[in-house]
């Protein structure tokens, strides 16, 4: 009999209803331990790089904001950094500050979304409900400023499209206070919980060496002790003027990544406050008539890591090449380093820990060569939750309770 046929394989994917994209993971398992992982992507390839070549320079931001609904501020900003580099244009100061505010609001809502999903994966649905509840006002703020909850379409070559009116600033500050208080409570509840310590520590470790080899970025790298952040290393927009620090944790496990994200929310709130306080007066855009021939590299720190755009112009009104690298493109392959040797019940969480802009785990078939049991996604999720419940029992921890103020 063919030996390869006997390999127990666990198929994860190719569609996930929680996150709107598709991906397929094939895990080879030995009993409960994962021994190999293979990924197939591009079920939903939209050819955005090719479409971009057919659009004019000022139309492209609206296209790239649709690369991902959650990162719809950082993609256009990275593109605009590249185009402004070619054109030699600098946006007015006020526009730079508005760009920071929109991008940091985006980071807060994206990180809260991840915290919620992480809770859901390990059976802490309370965390899921609360995190998403606190995320809602952030989206409302974005809607008030740009007109949209996602796909803000607020940046254009040479500046911004929508201004932040002065009368809105007190409202934003007030909301920030509430969000900060709620997030503080959530962070405390998560970081002090003994079950979560037991469940998340030492799970899905991505070592610093592996992180360098797989060239990961964002919270995935910062959770492995690599303190890189485009906002700090190559400051764009108004990040160079603001006072904040790069959060990093050395452990590399899921817990470290959760800590990095939670603490980053506070840094973002701090940044928005300072940006609103310093918000300079003046115009929000300069007119850009022509993009000369040339090439530019623009990058921006999206919630999930570095978003990189390369644009080449031949002096016409359309880019002749536009390369987009979203952060998950380098973060997802690092599963090869973090999942192998893991228990199956930890895999859903490890896969989710890089906050992949992706699908992950719907339609799971666990094929066990010894018993021929076929499970589905629900069963896998249940395994993950059962482990949490088991740990909870061992520790004797009470149910996670949160109080609303």
């Amino acid at each position: 009999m063919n030996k390869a046929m006997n390999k127990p394989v666990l198929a994860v994917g190719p569609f996930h209803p929680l996150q709107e994209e598709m991906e397929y993971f094939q895990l080879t398992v030995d009993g409960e331990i994962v021994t190999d992982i293979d990924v197939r992507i591009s079920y939903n390839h939209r050819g955005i790089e090719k479409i971009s070549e057919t659009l004019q320079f000022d139309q492209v931001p609206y296209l790239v904001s649709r690369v991902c609904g959650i990162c719809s501020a950082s993609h256009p900003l990275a593109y605009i950094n590249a185009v402004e580099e070619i054109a030699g244009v600098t946006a007015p100061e006020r526009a730079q500050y508005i760009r920071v505010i929109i991008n940091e609001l985006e980071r807060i809502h994206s990180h809260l979304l991840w915290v919620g999903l992480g809770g859901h994966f390990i059976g802490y649905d309370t965390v899921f409900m609360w995190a998403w509840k606190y995320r809602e006002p952030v989206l409302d703020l974005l809607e008030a400023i740009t007109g949209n909850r996602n796909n803000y379409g607020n940046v254009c070559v040479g500046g911004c499209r929508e201004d932040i009116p002065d009368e809105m600033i007190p409202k934003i500050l007030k909301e920030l206070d509430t969000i900060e208080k709620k997030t503080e409570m959530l962070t405390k509840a998560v970081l002090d919980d003994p079950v979560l310590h037991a469940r998340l520590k030492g799970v899905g470790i991505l070592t610093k060496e592996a992180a360098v080899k797989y060239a990961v970025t964002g919270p995935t790298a910062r959770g492995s002790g690599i303190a890189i952040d485009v906002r700090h290393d190559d400051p764009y927009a108004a990040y160079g003027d603001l006072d904040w620090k790069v959060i990093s944790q050395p452990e590399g496990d899921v817990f470290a990544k959760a800590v990095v994200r939670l603490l980053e929310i506070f840094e973002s709130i701090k940044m928005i406050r300072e940006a609103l306080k310093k918000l300079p007066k003046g115009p929000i855009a300069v007119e850009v008539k022509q993009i000369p021939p040339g090439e530019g590299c623009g990058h921006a720190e999206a919630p999930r890591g570095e978003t990189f755009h390369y644009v080449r112009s031949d002096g016409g009104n359309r880019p002749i090449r536009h390369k987009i690298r979203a952060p998950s493109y380098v973060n997802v392959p690092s599963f090869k380093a973090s999942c192998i040797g893991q228990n199956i019940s930890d895999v859903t969480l490890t896969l989710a820990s890089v906050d992949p802009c992706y699908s992950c785990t719907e339609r799971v078939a666990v094929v066990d060569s010894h018993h021929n049991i076929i499970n589905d996604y629900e069963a896998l999720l249940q395994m993950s939750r059962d482990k949490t419940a088991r740990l909870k029992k061992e520790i004797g921890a009470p149910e996670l309770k949160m109080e609303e103020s």
Partner: protein
Amino acid sequence: MNREKLNNRLQKIKDKLIDIVQTRDRRIYISCESQNACDVCKFLFEDLTLRFIIATGIDSDNCFEVLYHFANDETGDIVTVKAIIRDRENPSIESITPFIPGAEWIEREIHDILGIEIKNHPNMRRLILHDDWPEGVYPLRKTRPEVNEGTVI
């Protein structure tokens, strides 16, 4: 590594390069022939410990280009290696995946969409294109693909 050191170290591989251009502060473009690209990338990644960002394949006027973007996070520099492939009929380039595992996907993608052969790649399967996609049709090339009659793309 600070900028001065970076510039000094780049001089070491000067015989492998065509030129070094700084377009603006923190953006460095170095171009080389395709056969030297692998060595240059290895030098940047292993000796200078720059971070690999991504590679870009371009169908240029009379050649193909593969750009390897690297970041020096201490100074915020982006160093782009421009590998020029002059053979348009059978374009090929050496794989960098053996020493940068993070480049596996992008090299498969470049192979899919531009038809550039990546030599010594450890896992050269299709990444972007579906298994049904006809052989020899590359969606990101500027030339119109010659497709057999009746082939549905």
